[in-house]
């Protein structure tokens, strides 16, 4: 009986622990979504780190293409130091 309860409770505890960890670490992500225009596929989204922003000396690019804050060339062209 004791073993049966243990076998049922232990996986449940681990699941609760995993879900708690996931919620606890969710806010640690520094990623932001940027956009670039692909002549073949149109506007594409990419996840970038926090190194790109509205100011900086160099263009922020993905595979040689300028990244924008929104899927339009009229939005902010992202830059980095």
């Amino acid at each position: 009986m004791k073993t049966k309860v243990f076998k049922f409770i232990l996986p449940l505890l681990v699941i609760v622990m995993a879900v708690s960890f996931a919620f606890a670490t969710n806010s640690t992500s520094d990623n932001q979504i940027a956009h670039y225009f692909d002549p073949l596929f149109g506007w594409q989204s990419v996840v970038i780190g926090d190194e790109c922003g509205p100011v900086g000396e160099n263009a922020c690019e993905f595979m040689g293409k300028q990244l924008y804050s929104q899927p339009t060339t009229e939005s902010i062209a992202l830059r980095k130091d």
Partner: protein
Amino acid sequence: MVSLLFVLLFVYAAVSKLLDFKTFQIQLGQATLLRPVAGWLSWVVVVTELLIASLLCFVKTRLLGLYMSLFLMILFTVYIVIILNSAANTPCSCGGVLQALGWKDHLIFNSFFFLIALIGILIQRKQKYNLN
């Protein structure tokens, strides 16, 4: 113990992905190879992780769960090797703190879990054999 470690890993990874699902889908799409299938593949990955975690919770399905864990680890490792050999700067779509690992660290991480799955399978098979 081995199966509980996988339950922790898969539930954590799946819930982390679900919490930031849009980012996960975009990251998957950043791998050129996966771009056309990123939409449905993102769901398949999450559902598979949760399915394997639930299989590992029950004695009767534990061995199957361990085989599936091993298979998933092989798939993830193949994906990492492809990413490492491609020039594109593809981010990891693993979810949670696992995202902070570099691709090479991930290769080591996956190899560890691959070995753990193998050990788990051997223990489970031995236990089953002893019971029969």
